[in-house]
């Protein structure tokens, strides 16, 4: 079996002012063992909610349905206690802002020890030496000393490294990363991405990385899923999607990315994503799509298979294919 995580028809609903709205509207995805899946999308497309749904983390009143399988195990039917045993242990998560993801009143080392202690019965001294080893592994100099630092005493890049070390503490099978480099400057960003690849090679873990940055996606992805308004609109191998995007939204995203040597005005996708409280009928991208027709606004398009393991949800694909200029 090559899939580590299999998500099927995932729906995450919230109540907003007594009305039920869905932030994730039927997402199906596979994460391959030892590979990186990048989820690409704008702010508010439901990427982060989906990522949290994998860990069954939801605000009060939210409902998650569908199926999430880690290996052979269904995660959505697990008890809260069982989920606590999985979080941080088999699935770990990294957040965008390392400063706020670390408790300001704890020394960095203590927080990592806490994670290990939640899942493994080991002595304090042993946990400490493990933490020092981890911090060294993620490239933090003189780890024994840095363990005693408070989060505010570290630089942004160092903090993100510490958070990564915390995620690696129990050698998870799957690492979820929610825009892990967005808060960092570009040089540090490149270092952190390289670190991700190195730890992936060493631990053989799968990574799900959420980003809105196509550059990051191109650098990291084995597979890409493009998310729009709570749905996957295109999914496939990174190479195919970046070189021959099928869905008009993906085409728009790629064209809105500056390229080397490009002159003139950068093109942008007109309009705004639809509000979660007012989802249109049919294709949710139709209102912003340059190629939309009347049928698009009636029924949501199904996925069209488009080459090997490459799918996209658009009516146009049945006849013509949109091509990036």
């Amino acid at each position, binding site marked *: 079996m090559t899939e580590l995580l299999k998500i099927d028809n995932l729906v995450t609903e919230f109540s907003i002012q007594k009305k039920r709205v869905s932030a994730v509207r039927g997402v199906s995805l596979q994460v391959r063992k030892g590979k990186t899946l990048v989820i690409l999308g704008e702010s508010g497309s439901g990427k982060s909610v989906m990522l949290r749904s994998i*860990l069954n*983390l939801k605000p*009060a009143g939210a409902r998650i349905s569908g199926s999430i399988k880690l290996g052979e195990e269904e995660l959505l039917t697990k008890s809260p*206690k069982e989920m*606590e*045993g*999985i*979080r*941080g*242990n088999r699935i*770990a*998560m990294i*957040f965008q*802002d390392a400063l*706020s*993801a*670390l*408790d*300001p*009143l*704890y020394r960095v080392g203590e927080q990592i020890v*806490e*994670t290990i202690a*939640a*899942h493994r019965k080991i002595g304090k001294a042993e946990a400490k030496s493990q933490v020092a080893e981890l911090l*060294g*592994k*993620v*490239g*933090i*100099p*003189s780890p024994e*000393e*840095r363990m005693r*630092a408070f989060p505010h*005493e*570290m*630089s942004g*890049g*160092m903090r993100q490294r510490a*958070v990564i070390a*915390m*995620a690696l*503490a129990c050698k998870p099978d799957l690492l*979820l990363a929610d825009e892990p480099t967005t808060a960092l400057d570009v040089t*540090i960003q490149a*270092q952190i991405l*390289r*670190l991700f690849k*190195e*730890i992936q090679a*060493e631990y053989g873990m799968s990574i799900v990385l959420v980003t809105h940055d196509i550059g990051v996606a191109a650098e990291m992805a084995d597979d890409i899923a493009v998310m729009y308004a709570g749905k996957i609109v295109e999914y496939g191998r990174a190479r195919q999607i970046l070189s021959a995007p099928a869905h008009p939204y993906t085409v728009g995203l790629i064209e809105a990315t500056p390229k080397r040597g490009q002159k003139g005005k950068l093109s942008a996708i007109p309009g705004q994503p639809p509000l979660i409280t007012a989802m249109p009928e049919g294709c949710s991208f139709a209102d912003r799509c340059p190629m939309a027709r009347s049928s698009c606004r009636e029924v949501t398009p199904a996925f069209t298979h488009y080459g090997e393991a490459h799918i996209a949800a658009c009516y146009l694909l049945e006849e013509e294919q949109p091509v990036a200029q």
Partner: protein
Amino acid sequence: MAINAPTAGGTAALATAGREPSRAAQIWKSFSRRKVALAALVVLLLIVLACLLAPWVAPYGPNDGAVTDRLKEVGSAGHVLGTDEQGRDILSRILYGGRLSLLSGVLPVLLASVIGGGLGVAAGYFGGWTNTIIMRALDIVFSFPAILLAIGISAALGPGISNIIISATVVFIPPIARIAESAAKEVRKEEFIEAAKTSGAGAGLIVRSHVLRNIFGKIFVFSTSQIGVCLMVASGLSFLGLGVSPPTPEWGFMLNNLKQLIFVNPVVTIVPGIFIFLTSLSLNLVSDALSDALELKR
């Protein structure tokens, strides 16, 4: 085995981290910049120490009276703060009585911090129905005027210092719970709480380690500011005869006892009041400065 080369930023941060003064030192530096607070702290320490060491410091026993020494003025030889109608030395009675008075100022706040803090954290962290039930129940208690409620409870339980402590505790639970609730609500939204959840921490562990540690400062500062108030409430109850029974010295009750001398010896009469006032004022000044100092850096 380092996978990645260390960056210059890391070593620079390391250098500054080493030289940063400790947190305690920072708080003390900010606190001691306020001369008034410093003076208040000295006064407070003097009063507390003198009361604790009363058997060694006080010139007389608390109940040693001599008929010949009755109704001495403040400043009389051998009786610096005068004597009462039974010839007992006021200074000695103040020092011995201070132990009970201070205890009835500190203990209710301490108990209320534990109980109210616990209720508030539970309400704030778990939210929803838990919050509604706990906070609305406390609102009912809160809706009574504090002093009246304390008098009511004390009167119902009967006179005695332990009943004063109980009634004062009840009065101070709701405000402390409110502070704890709002602080816990704030902390609950922090990303490190979510990060702790994603690392597999259960609610118990999160509350114990992250929530309590992060709201401790707020509760501590508020509670210390309430000790002065509590001292006044307890003294007030005692003044009304709901506290100690004679001849045990206690500031509030002494005030009651001496009030009959107000036309004979007016200055002696107000001595216990001055001690209540001084202690309460110093406590407030210290807690004020402390709250500023603690907010220096998070």
